[in-house]
């Protein structure tokens, strides 16, 4: 049954406290665990008042409390940052350097200045095509994936019988190998021998109407939507899982309060769920956009970038340049132009998020 009928003083938070009890003296003997839960007995120094104290106050008090966090922060960052510097930052900087060289990987690189960039921005027709394709994929995939993912998460974040099975099933595409998935979709879309087409042909034969299945992957206009469909199918489970985790962090009391105020289902989604998961939405938007700009496998396996480069993406082009056409330098240049695009978009998003992302604590950006 789906809906909790009564407020639970010891709802999900109690569980969390129990789970933590073995390791956590601070949260272990408390049942507070969350803000906006004024009726709960709060532990130790926390009172209902502190819980509702504005962020600004608590932040500034906290700062006074620990003046030496600069060094502490560095220590926390160290394990990640050391590895990050060596295995992520150095190669990234090396790729920037490479973009000013001609390098076929076999003989030593040759410095060519900005030639690769000039070529890309002036004479390279293929680049214009892949740029358009990539924008097409980004503006279609990102919003659809977020919407479907949230919808699924909300639908599956409930106590319906068999919900665990559904959650498993909806996650299956994420774990299925892209090779198998792409094959099935090819077969789905095949005009003569696919199941989708077979159904449409049958319909046409039965009704006598001139219905014909589209020539999905053989037609430049249809191949792009086919890649979008495959990507959505494959990756929506990812969005769903992250949203599911985020929904767990939304205090039930907020819904209870909304209920008391007579909010409809849509209203409690709009005014409780949506703002409460907004940090996650922001995260997913940034990550999905980076992912969509870097779309590669789906097009690589299903359409090989074709027909006539209709599904050739920027990263596919980078792969071709670097490993098929032996032009690592130009591939790196494409990558850095891509970087500038993604960076700009991400930057705009981090600026815009202040208007709609609701953080609980700790900062302004």
């Amino acid at each position, binding site marked *: 049954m789906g809906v909790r009928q009564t407020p639970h003083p010891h709802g999900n938070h109690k569980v*969390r406290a129990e789970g933590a009890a073995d*390791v956590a003296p601070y949260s272990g003997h408390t049942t507070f*665990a969350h803000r906006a839960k004024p009726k709960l007995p709060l532990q130790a120094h926390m009172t209902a008042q502190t819980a509702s104290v504005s962020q600004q106050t608590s932040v500034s008090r906290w700062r006074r409390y*620990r003046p030496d966090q600069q060094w502490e922060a560095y220590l*926390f960052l160290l394990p990640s940052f050391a590895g990050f510097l060596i295995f*992520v930052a150095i190669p990234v900087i090396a790729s920037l350097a490479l973009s000013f060289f001609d390098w076929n990987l076999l003989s030593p690189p040759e410095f060519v200045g900005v030639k690769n960039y000039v070529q890309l921005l002036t004479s390279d027709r293929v680049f214009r095509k892949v740029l358009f394709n990539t924008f097409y994929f980004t503006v279609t995939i990102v919003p659809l994936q977020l919407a479907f993912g949230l919808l699924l998460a909300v639908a599956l974040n409930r106590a319906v019988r068999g919900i665990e099975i559904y959650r498993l099933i909806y996650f299956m595409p994420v774990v299925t190998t892209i090779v198998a998935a792409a094959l099935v*979709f090819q077969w789905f879309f095949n005009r003569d021998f696919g199941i989708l087409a077979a159904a449409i042909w049958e319909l046409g034969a039965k009704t006598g109407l001139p219905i014909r299945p589209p020539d999905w992957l053989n037609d430049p206009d249809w191949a792009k939507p086919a890649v979008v469909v495959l990507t959505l199918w494959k990756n929506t489970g990812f969005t769903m899982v992250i949203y599911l*985790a985020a929904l767990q962090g939304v205090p039930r009391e907020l819904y209870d309060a909304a209920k008391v105020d007579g909010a409809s289902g849509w209203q409690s989604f709009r005014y409780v769920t949506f703002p409460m998961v907004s940090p996650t939405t922001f995260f997913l938007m940034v990550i999905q956009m980076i992912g969509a700009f870097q779309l590669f496998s789906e097009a690589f396996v299903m359409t090989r970038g074709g027909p006539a480069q209709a599904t050739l993406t920027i990263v596919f082009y980078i792969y071709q340049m670097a490993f098929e056409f032996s032009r690592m330098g130009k591939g790196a240049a494409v990558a850095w132009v891509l970087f500038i695009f993604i960076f700009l978009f991400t930057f705009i998003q981090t600026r815009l998020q202040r208007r709609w992302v609701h953080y609980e604590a*700790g900062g302004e950006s």
Partner: protein
Amino acid sequence: MTTRTAVDGRAAFDARNLLIHAALIFGSVVMLLPFGWMLATSLKAPPQIFTYPPTLIPNPVVWQNYVDTVRAMPFGRFYLNSLFVAVSVTTLQILTASLSAFAFARLRYRGREALFLVYLATLMIPFQVTMIPNFILIRYLRWYDTFYALIVPTAFSAFAVFLLRQYFRGIPVELDEAARMDGASSLRIWARVIMPLSGPVLAALTIFVFLGSWNDFLWPLVVTNSNATRTIPVGLASFQGQFNTDWHLLMAGSVIALLPVLLVYILAQKRFVEGITLSGMGGR
């Protein structure tokens, strides 16, 4: 649509549930179809694979495909290699990422936002162009064809830092404060306050890091040379030949490869939705 809304009577309730079930089942079929095809193909003889009309039920059922797949390469060895690498990477990544995410979400210091932007920015450079510099680094470290090459470079992820930072920032600051007033150090707060409250997101992250490492192909291909270090995806890729692909073996191998990821998912799923499973059904 949300679960937490008020519902008047049981009748409306059941009808709605029925509708939801119908929609969910329809979606399930769509979601499962490719997997079903994969399973079916893994049990078909080669001439049965691409027939028209398409069939989902193999006839005859060729269990031998699984035997052939496992025998075609040192499958057990690859499997254990993959497991070792994926578990190590997952553990290390969650450890390093949660520490730095804590610093990004909870500590206040100069350069925090700029440093975070640098982390984020590295996600924007596709792997295809950093692979060669990374490989040269691996050669320089004398790690070619070792587990270090498979594990260490992939143990640091800006993605994980970002995900955890977003989640940590949603945890009330008052909790840290209370702990600090009790004299807890930041490390203690990370271990005893933040991490225990982040079960759902850590579970989700575990799945994705494990999955990513388990399915990683190009990097393991490039840095390994011997069967002692090769992983499952590299082994499976060899079924796709220049002219012929052994679909039945490829799919059988893929099905076997899927199992650990599903296991991790099932274990983790309990965690990231435990609130529901324990308290939700009680509402009945």
